[in-house]
């Protein structure tokens, strides 16, 4: 039995997990500069301690409805893909969970295509399902185009 750390987070009420080793930091996406003519998933670019980070809206990427009025300020998790810095804008971060590989399941076959390729698998937690995201395909330009 081997354990793996996951950062768990919520987007549109759904619980997601990202391999904790991939998450560089968690921050408030502030001072966003919108990028005209870019895809709708792109929230903008921002300066995070001297680095230019491209913020990608998780709700848009997953095809979820936009944030409700009056919702708390969103958070972003810092990820690196192909040497570029990204911030995945999410609703909130829950905690870091140590999860056992044995409880890991391949994604079910009936997922919408937009979800199917970015989901690595599912953990059955006691209360709910934890959907594990693959940051790579999530933020990859080619996959984004296809989506």
């Amino acid at each position: 039995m081997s354990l793996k750390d996951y950062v768990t987070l919520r987007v549109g009420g759904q619980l997601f997990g990202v391999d904790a080793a991939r998450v560089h930091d968690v921050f408030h996406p502030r001072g966003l500069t919108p990028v005209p003519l870019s895809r709708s998933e792109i929230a903008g670019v921002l300066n995070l301690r001297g680095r230019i980070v491209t913020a990608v809206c998780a709700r848009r990427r997953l095809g979820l409805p936009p944030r409700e009025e009056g919702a708390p300020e969103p958070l972003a998790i810092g990820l690196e893909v192909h040497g570029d810095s990204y911030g995945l804008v999410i609703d909130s971060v829950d905690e870091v969970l140590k999860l056992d590989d044995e409880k890991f399941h391949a994604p079910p076959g009936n997922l919408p295509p937009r979800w199917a390729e970015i989901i690595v698998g599912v953990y059955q937690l006691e209360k709910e399902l934890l959907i594990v995201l693959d940051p790579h395909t999530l933020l990859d330009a080619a996959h984004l185009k296809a989506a």
Partner: protein
Amino acid sequence: MRTLSTTGYIVDDLISEFLTETAESLEVVDSELVRFEANPNERKTLDNIFRLVHTVKGTCGFLGLSRLEAVAHAGETLLGRFRDGKLDVTPVAVTLVLHSIDRIKVILAGLEATGNEPDGDDHDLIAQLEAMAEGQAVDLSTVKAVEVPDRPINGEIEPAVFNGPALGAGALGVGDIDPATGRALRPGEVAEADLEAAFAAADGPDDTPTTLQAGDIDPATGRALRLGEVSEADLEAAFAAAESPDWMNEATSDVEVSQPVAPSAPPVTAIKPAVPTPPAKAPEPMAGLGGEDAQGIATTQSIRVSVDVLEGLMTLVSEMVLTRNQLLQISRTREDSAFATPLQRLSTLTGELQDSVMKTRMQPIGAAWKKLPRLVRDLSYELGKKIDLVMEGEGTELDRQVLELIRDPLTHMVRNSADHGLEGTQERIDLGKPATGTVKLSAFHEGGYIVIRISDNGRGLNTPRIREKLLEKGLVTRNELDTLSDQQVQRYIFAPGFSTAAAVTNLSGRGVGMDVVRTNIEQIGGQIDLLSVPGSGTTFTIKIPLTLAIVSALIVGAGGQKFAVPQTSVMELVRTGQNAEHKIEKINDALVLRLRNKLLPLVQLGPTLQLEAAKDEDATFVMVIQVGERRYGLVVNDVLDTEEIVVKPLATILRDVNVFSGATILGDGSVVLILDPNAMSERAGNMLEEKASEDTEDTTAHAGSEKVAMLLFRAGSGAPKAVELAHITRLEHIESDKIEMMEGRAALQYRGKLMPILTVSSDFSGLLSSSREEAHVQPLLVFTGEGYAMGLAVDEIVDVVEDQMTIELSADRPGVRGTAIIAGRACEILDVDYYHLRGLAEHQRHPVSHVSSERAVA
């Protein structure tokens, strides 16, 4: 260092190092040979060449590269005969040696690609070399000259690892060409690492001429010598330079500048913190280069640094500069700051650090010139012209990245100058010019730019021929041509699809024209211009920024957002708006700006980026932007600031948004996107074509097509009319009641004069009838000639289109040239001359007199 070749093979370390060093040696041999040929008595040059070739041969033998060894051996034998004075140095002999060098390069390229010597037969070449060495006559034509792939070694290697091809050698080559300048000892040029290795292996077999002569290296020593051999050549070059009386001064002044300089081109990256005095003090040992003597030089310290490390350093410093800027901005807003003094100190240090790191990226431009002596020599023989290549300012430094980008354009231009610019030798003699033509390259710094001049003392550009060609190719209309000055005409050699070469030679005129050169230079924010004097030559001047990493940018506002525009592409700023002198006008929805009697097509930044305009944004500026042939105006809401920005690439996910070339962090910590004027112009181009506006700079046809911009309008009865836009000076919309009628003629007070108004139907019923009812807006086409103007009143301006004008039906009445299909419609083409005559007649009937005395009837 393990080098991954592009073909994916991991080349063995040993081979890899051999390839690198040999490539360097061969570059040196190329230029040395050319020098040697010009001056066969220069013993030192020959020694140097001999040593280099010998080194290659020795190393090949050790590595078991038999094919290479055989060629090198034969070449060396021939060189040996020169050296012993048993054979005269003839151009044929030198060409033969050059052929063998080329062959070696080809084999090396194969070796680089596959890790093995390519198959091939060199017997023809070797036989020729041997025959030549025996003093027999050699027919060069039997030796097949091989096409050497450009940068045979270096080009193959992953650019990230090996970005500055053989810089050390290149610089050495430069130094060799003119040792008097002491250039060979500029930092990095002598491969210090090689030097060091040389000392380790200094008791090499080529200490004495006899060993050299024999050329057979004991493998045991050969191995030790592998590195050292190249270095000895380098050493020798260094000594050659050291003997120059200027050297010490040069070096001393050099050191101040060069101390922090770490030439960044791998693999011979060498940082030289110490003054290279030892080689200067030890010019003697070169005759019998003993290891003991050379040991003293080992105090010169250097290390090889990979470009990646330097790039990383650059990135870090850039970020540090940005952070510094932010800190300064914060401290400015606080009065009580105890941080002010240390912050000031930090700021200064950061600046110095930035300068130093920038210098590690700097390389002498000579590195891009090193192939040129050989090129000019080959050209000289091929074309049968005597050509001198003069190079000045090889030491002028610029960013490595920029250097790479101008290498090919420069080569192309030197080739052009030698081939097309210079007359043949006989022609020169007939003209009373010196028989030897000169191509001169010079470089110097000016502001944040490096200026490079390529000049020849040849025949100059044939301006009348260019004019003919412009018409032939439909690049300009005859009307436009008349208004162009000679210099403007000459600049058309930069236009796409233009080539003046009457005869296409083997070496130039391969279809890559000056337009490519211009594009390349403009892509890096540079400019190119030329000056040509008939009979005395042509000078090209290139001005390029020293570095691309940090650029000067204008921060502009549009659609409530800030953007950075690189300053190099902005020609001028024009204020427009309510009270400004210049106003934005519309031709059929396309925005244009009248600027010094020309129409500048405009692109609105906000709308193009699909940004909503903020309400209070109306004070607008037009940035006149020149990209290649195209000039357009970018309408922005505000120009806020100029700032030195550090360009950072956008994340991959944003690469499809091509209007931005990157992003940067401003002093206030905000991120702004950097506009790419090139991409914007493409967008602009699309828009302009859709709306069928015209660009007055190169009004009409793009190269190749014979399309003409036509104005479509309705006037009188019958088919729509069309007229070439080029004939129209202005489009006016006037109040119809301003038209004054007298004695069956109509006129308008226009710019203080009375301008006759004509109509197509030659009666004024249309004008009169409408003016009786109520005033309406009357469209007017204004034509001007020498000292007069006339207006043609039309019913409606329909469109401006670009189309071919093929008159298919002949005219059936005066004023019409015929009927043509324009934009899918049958249109009558206006006979402009007819209306000019009528307009002129009107003027003569009543010479412009006092307006008041002829008060209108209507």
